[in-house]
């Protein structure tokens, strides 16, 4: 019934409007900074979707999926937090801890068949992320410490721990500070022969999205989380253990972020470098906001961000536009998403000028 239309008018339309508006403004910025938006965007689309694979180069679209995978998993985790009114800004740190744990299991544990080792390594990442987030969750639940602040602090601690481990205890015997390679049995395999990199993580991500849908719309836990998020006082009155819910939600959120870390390292790196992501955790907050808590929306948002991340390189190559323009696009997007009113008012003032003319044409 009207649910679908509500989704459309309630969230989808504004989100799409935001994206278009953002692309427009970023285009303006390019013009101002003296580069050609048309060329840039078409190169972006080329590099993100259209360029076919060759012997020496993976298919553009598959690469977009590869980039979208961590975004999707992370954004799901962050959205989970939002649902309960928790702001998990610590996704990045949980990502790091997840990666650290699964890589450790990946190379320290030896001689297991893949169907045990791989799940084990993944599980390690999930658990690590879960525990790391649970620190903030526990502090929120028992000490009312605002997770907005604690998760940020935990990020820095996570960087330090990973860096210490990779430079110290877990360092391999090469020049570059990194861990040894994980055992083949712990590798999350690719779906296609090289140079393609598309890997099973994609399906894990999709599975996570489906799971998210069921959790939120079909399970009692999901409803419980939403109730706590919308009115924690009423939730308490109704016999829901609010603090426990905070803890659980934060743990689940962290589990997903940890999974994202595990997938990245087990599928792509197959070892742990010091710097293995730059701001996935933060970009994913934007993805989550754009996705508006709806798994389909989140998936689409992740695809969009993945496409931008993937297309950026080729855009710079062929249009010579610094790929940091992407950050600008993303910045505009979430501002409009955060305050749909702004986008609306901008568009309306536009429409206002545009519609009458169209009406006249109609008469003619």
């Amino acid at each position, binding site marked *: 019934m009207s649910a679908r239309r509500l989704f459309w008018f309630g969230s989808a339309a504004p989100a799409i409007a935001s994206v278009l508006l953002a692309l427009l403004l970023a285009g303006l910025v390019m013009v101002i900074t003296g580069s050609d938006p048309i060329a840039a965007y078409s190169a972006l689309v080329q590099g993100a979707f259209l360029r076919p694979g060759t012997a020496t180069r993976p298919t553009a679209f598959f690469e977009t999926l590869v980039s979208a995978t961590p975004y999707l998993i992370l954004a799901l985790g962050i959205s989970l937090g939002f649902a309960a009114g928790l702001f998990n800004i610590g996704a990045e740190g949980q990502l790091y801890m997840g990666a650290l744990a699964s890589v450790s299991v990946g190379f320290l544990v030896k001689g297991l068949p893949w169907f045990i080792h791989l799940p084990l390594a993944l599980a390690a990442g999930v658990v690590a992320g879960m525990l790391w987030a649970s620190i903030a969750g526990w502090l929120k639940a028992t000490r009312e410490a605002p997770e907005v602040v604690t998760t940020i602090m935990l990020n820095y601690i996570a960087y330090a721990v990973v860096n210490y481990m990779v430079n110290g205890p877990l360092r391999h015997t090469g020049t570059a500070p990194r861990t040894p390679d994980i055992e083949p049995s712990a590798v999350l395999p690719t779906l296609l022969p090289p140079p393609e990199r598309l890997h099973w993580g994609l399906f894990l991500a999709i599975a996570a999205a489906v799971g998210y849908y069921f959790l939120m719309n*079909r*399970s*009692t*836990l999901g*409803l*419980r989380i*939403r*109730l706590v998020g*919308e*009115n924690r*006082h*009423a*939730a*308490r*009155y*109704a*016999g*829901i*253990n609010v603090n426990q819910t905070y803890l659980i939600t934060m743990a689940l959120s962290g589990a997903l972020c940890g999974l994202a870390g595990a997938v990245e390292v087990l599928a792509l790196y197959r070892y742990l470098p010091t710097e293995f992501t730059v701001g996935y955790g933060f970009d994913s907050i934007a993805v989550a906001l754009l996705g508006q808590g709806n798994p389909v929306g989140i998936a689409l948002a992740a695809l969009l961000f993945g496409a931008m991340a993937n297309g950026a390189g080729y855009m710079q190559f062929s249009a010579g536009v610094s790929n940091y323009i992407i950050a600008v696009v993303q910045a505009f997007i979430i501002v409009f998403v955060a305050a749909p009113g702004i986008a609306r008012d901008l568009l309306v003032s536009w429409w206002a000028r545009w519609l009458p003319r169209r009406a006249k044409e109609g008469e003619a």
Partner: protein
Amino acid sequence: MGEPILQMRNITKRFPGVLANDHIFFDLNRGEIHALLGENGAGKTTLMNIFYGLYQPDEGEIWLNGRRVTIHSPKDAIALGIGMVHQHFTLVPTLSVTENVILGAETGRFGVLDLAQPRQRILAIARDYGLEVDPDALVKDLPVGVQQRVEIIKALYRNAQVLILDEPTAVLTPLEVERLFETLRAMVRRGVSIIFISHKLKEVMAIADRITVLRQGRVVGSTTPAEADEAKLASMMVGRPVMLQVEKLPAQPGEVVLSVRDLRVMSDRRAVAVDGVSFEVRAGEIVGIAGVEGNGQSELVEAITGLRAPVHGTVMLCGQPLPHALPRAAIDAGMSHIPEDRHKYGMVAQQPLAVNLTLSTFHQPPFAQRGLLRWVTIREHARRLIREFDIRAPHELVPIASLSGGNQQKSVVARELSRPLKLLVAAQPTRGVDVGSIEFIHKRIVQARDAGAAVLLVSAELDEIMSLSDRILVMFKGHIVGERDARTATREEIGLLMMGRVKEGAA
């Protein structure tokens, strides 16, 4: 007594789904007390909020001292010499009395606060009108009665010529009401004109020079105490003769269901709110707790229902002690709770009605199985309750926020009565609800009793307590100061108990 100082002409105000004021004419003469009488939701507050600039009317004009005025904001209203004591107080708890009074009308050079001189004026006003108050006390430490004085001082400090009092007596004991009336008369003598909002007939008869009655946003008539009597006013208010008594058979109290032992509870401000309270409620009886708001009733209820941890004492349900601060335990033990604050506790505004009707049970069969929700059952159940309790809603999936206050409250009642229950704790069950719903809710509560449930009723409305209860406990300053049999008790003695006056010879 003379020429009209204020005329409101043809005022109309619509809210989503409600016509709060429907072409209202209302006038006020200099130096008179004009009572505005009406049921909950009649539109009294809305009309006054328009006069005070908080709302803009959709239609109509306001004339003040013979000039047409448009009042955009309270700022304008204040400038025009209008003062208002709001139904829900507007004092900042963390600020001192003086700071509250001068807020918005501060004096002092270069924006630096001058507190000394205002302090003097406050003391002066207090003297003139018999409104003693310590100008340096923090508002949060003052009893409600005194807070109201601060509100009035606030208005006088701004030289209000017209003073609006929105249900000022709701929070006062009968004696305090008398004092308030003294003050009002003193003001009138000084030429202040007063609009006195209430739905309590006796008070209106006692204080008003003129009475205008509102019903469902319309003026149903104007009269004076001389030519009207309570019964007449009542039927004007409600639109039909009201039966002030709920007819119910005498109770057959069964075994003890709820027993509270020596309960001690702190308020949010870490003050003792409930001080060693003990009582019992038996199956099949309604025990009413009377008392002026703020004497610990809320904390008592929260402690019993597990929303607040008592510092001492036990709550036993059917002989089993309930763990502290664990609503779930109380619910599972068969306790239902109609909360005092519907919006904070009673409902999750944006969730569908169906969810709100299963708020505390959705996780268990038949509504859920193996952790999965069974929406079909949940919706069926919702549709059933909507029929049974005649909740006015398009369908069970609309957000409960979109329902009218009365229907929201009915939904809460429906939810709480739809579970097998041993004890019903009903706090202000009919607050802000139209009279039709009041009667309906009262009937349901009595039904629950007759079905063998124990009922603990907490209400600030003495009439509600008197008409509904089988036994009446009176709370004052965190203590239970008296117990009466509802059949023999009189308003007067309960009123005295509410002020802590224990009459000799009383049980």
